[in-house]
């Protein structure tokens, strides 16, 4: 199967929250970034993929196994997970934690773990509860990477970290996917981080998947223009994907190939596109 994750028609409802009809594929060997505001359903989607919570309907396949397969637990050995908080026993040191993990994962790689501890400069004798947030996340990542995973599921793994550590982590993700059968699903609300590493971007908004597209194509497809109100009215309504009206003019997100070439388009970042689409409601 060419996809590391295949989600079809996935539904999950909580009182006051609905994750609705999600279709999402993560092609093997690529990095998919899941963007969305707080409460959009990113974490719910990742937990559903792990079968940490039960879905209402739909099918999910992870690394060739259906979520309902009796031996789905075996697949979890091949998935490295980092959630937004690391929950390890507070009194353990990194070295003691290793002993626990060696019993948890059958393909635990002691040497890899030790190398990551060194690379991340994690203290060996310090107890987990005294770790800083950056250290905790690095430790969780070291554990996730040390049992030879084929897939990484990262839920807000880079948020709350300083730019240096985040960049280090992005490098690591980049390195991890040098292997053709290594894939990553990463959620974040730091869009610029995702823009740096992702091949695909999926945008979750109020429980619905508004778009899932190749990152570079998105940037090619949309452009921001700054125009007067009259010009805006003259514009083909089909070409308009979103707008922000100000006192002295209008900023509009447009489809590049539907506007006259005389329009001066601004350099458009992924963040601009996401913000405009979130406000205007995307039409794909």
């Amino acid at each position, binding site marked *: 199967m060419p996809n590391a994750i295949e989600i079809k028609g996935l539904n999950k409802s909580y009182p006051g929250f609905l994750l609705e009809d999600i279709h999402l594929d993560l092609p093997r060997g690529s990095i998919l970034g899941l963007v969305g505001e707080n409460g959009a359903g990113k974490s719910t989607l990742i937990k559903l993929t792990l079968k940490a919570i039960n879905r209402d309907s739909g099918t999910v396949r992870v690394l060739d196994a259906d979520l309902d397969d009796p031996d789905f637990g075996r697949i979890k050995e091949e998935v490295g997970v980092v959630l937004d908080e690391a929950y390890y026993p507070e009194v353990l040191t990194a070295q003691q934690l290793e002993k626990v993990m060696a019993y948890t994962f059958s393909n635990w790689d002691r040497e890899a773990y030790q190398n990551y501890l060194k690379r991340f400069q994690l203290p060996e004798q310090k107890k987990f509860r005294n770790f800083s947030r950056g250290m905790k996340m690095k430790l969780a990542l070291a554990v996730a990477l040390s049992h030879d995973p084929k897939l990484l599921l990262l839920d807000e793994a880079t948020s709350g970290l300083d730019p240096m550590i985040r960049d280090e982590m992005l490098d690591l993700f*980049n*390195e991890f*996917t040098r292997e053709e059968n290594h894939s990553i699903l990463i959620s974040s609300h730091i869009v610029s981080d995702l823009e740096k590493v*992702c091949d695909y971007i999926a945008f979750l908004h109020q429980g619905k998947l508004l778009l899932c597209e*190749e990152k*570079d194509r998105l940037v090619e497809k949309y452009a921001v223009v700054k125009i007067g109100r009259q010009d805006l009215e003259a514009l083909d309504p089909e070409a308009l994907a979103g707008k922000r009206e100000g006192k002295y003019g209008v900023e509009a997100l447009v489809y590049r190939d539907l506007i006259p070439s005389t329009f001066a388009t601004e*350099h458009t970042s992924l963040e601009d596109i996401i913000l405009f689409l979130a406000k205007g409601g995307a039409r794909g």
Partner: protein
Amino acid sequence: MEIFISNTGSNPIYQQIYEQLRNAILSGTLKEGDLLPSIRGLAKDLRISVITTKRAYDELEKAGYIHTVAGKGCYVAPKNTEQVRAEHCRRIEEHLRVVLRLAPACGISSEEITALIHKLQKEEQGCPTPSK
């Protein structure tokens, strides 16, 4: 070989790779039969998307600059002289367009441009025109 990716330019990233690899092939930096970096390797080294890199390679293959050997990688294809000529023509055209845009701005006629070209040609051939 050096490749630079600009994120601010209006040129799509795949086109930037396409053009830089093509130029390297046309200028001889990459020679016939040379193995190109692997798509995944290049993408990761440049910190860009694998799909985008693949798209650039696909375009290069379509245009006949490289060919793929299954399981081995992409190699620089034998130079097609006609293609090289066409590419050079296209570049000359590009430069001339700039000239034609600049000339009217300072009132230089096309006769003067032609004269200038002849003068430059002579200079290039090593027989300088007598100075005025």
